[in-house]
């Protein structure tokens, strides 16, 4: 058996990788991927601790997380698409019509 703390460490590592991607990447699509990493870090935790606690709550919730992640990507790509049409790029720092 893999000790449950390792899952925690793995999830944290994945989360931090995602966070790093968000902070360093300017491409909107890479940004989306980083967010997916972060959400999947949560899923790792949920599934691992679902097994640890012996109930299925975490597993079931991870299904919902996946569904929502997918929906989020769908909306996100739609927005990125209109971004591309308006700004001719998917660089998130280009959109500077308004003061940040």
């Amino acid at each position, binding site marked *: 058996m893999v000790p449950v703390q390792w899952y925690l460490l793995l999830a944290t590592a994945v989360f931090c990788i995602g966070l790093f991607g968000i902070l360093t990447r300017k491409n909107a699509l890479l940004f989306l991927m980083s967010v997916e990493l972060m959400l999947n870090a949560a899923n790792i935790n949920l599934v691992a601790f679902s097994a640890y606690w012996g109930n299925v709550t975490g597993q079931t919730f991870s*299904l919902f997380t*996946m*569904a929502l992640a*997918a929906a989020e990507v769908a909306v996100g*790509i*739609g927005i990125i698409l209109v971004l591309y049409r308006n700004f001719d790029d998917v660089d998130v720092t280009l959109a500077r019509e308004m003061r940040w």
Partner: protein
Amino acid sequence: MNQWIAIGALGLVGVGIPIGMMVVSALLRPSVSEQGKTVIYESGEVPTGTAHVQFNIQYYMVALLFVVFDVETVLIFPWTMIYRSALEQGATLGQILAPMLVFIGILVVGLVWAWRNGAVEWVKSPRANRAKTERQS
């Protein structure tokens, strides 16, 4: 857990066989550099423009629909698994079937809307294209 060791082993083999074939081929095959050979194929003409052409928005609409429905199947699957055993254990149809019917009903409303708004309509002509997908202010 040993199940997954076996599956992982198959994964390894699945990667190993193609790589092995590549290695064998690399040892066998000749390499004759010759100008013009590496030009990409465009029916024999000199290639023009970038290969990353803008493609039809329809591909994206379909992808969006897929994301929605595919993810819903994730939620349908656990239900199918317990459906029969739940019935055998005395759950009524109202408890076990009705929620899923509502769920699918909502999905169907979405599908009908997407259908009627041309999300699953492939382009037929530029005019139809304008009427269906460029409908905006």
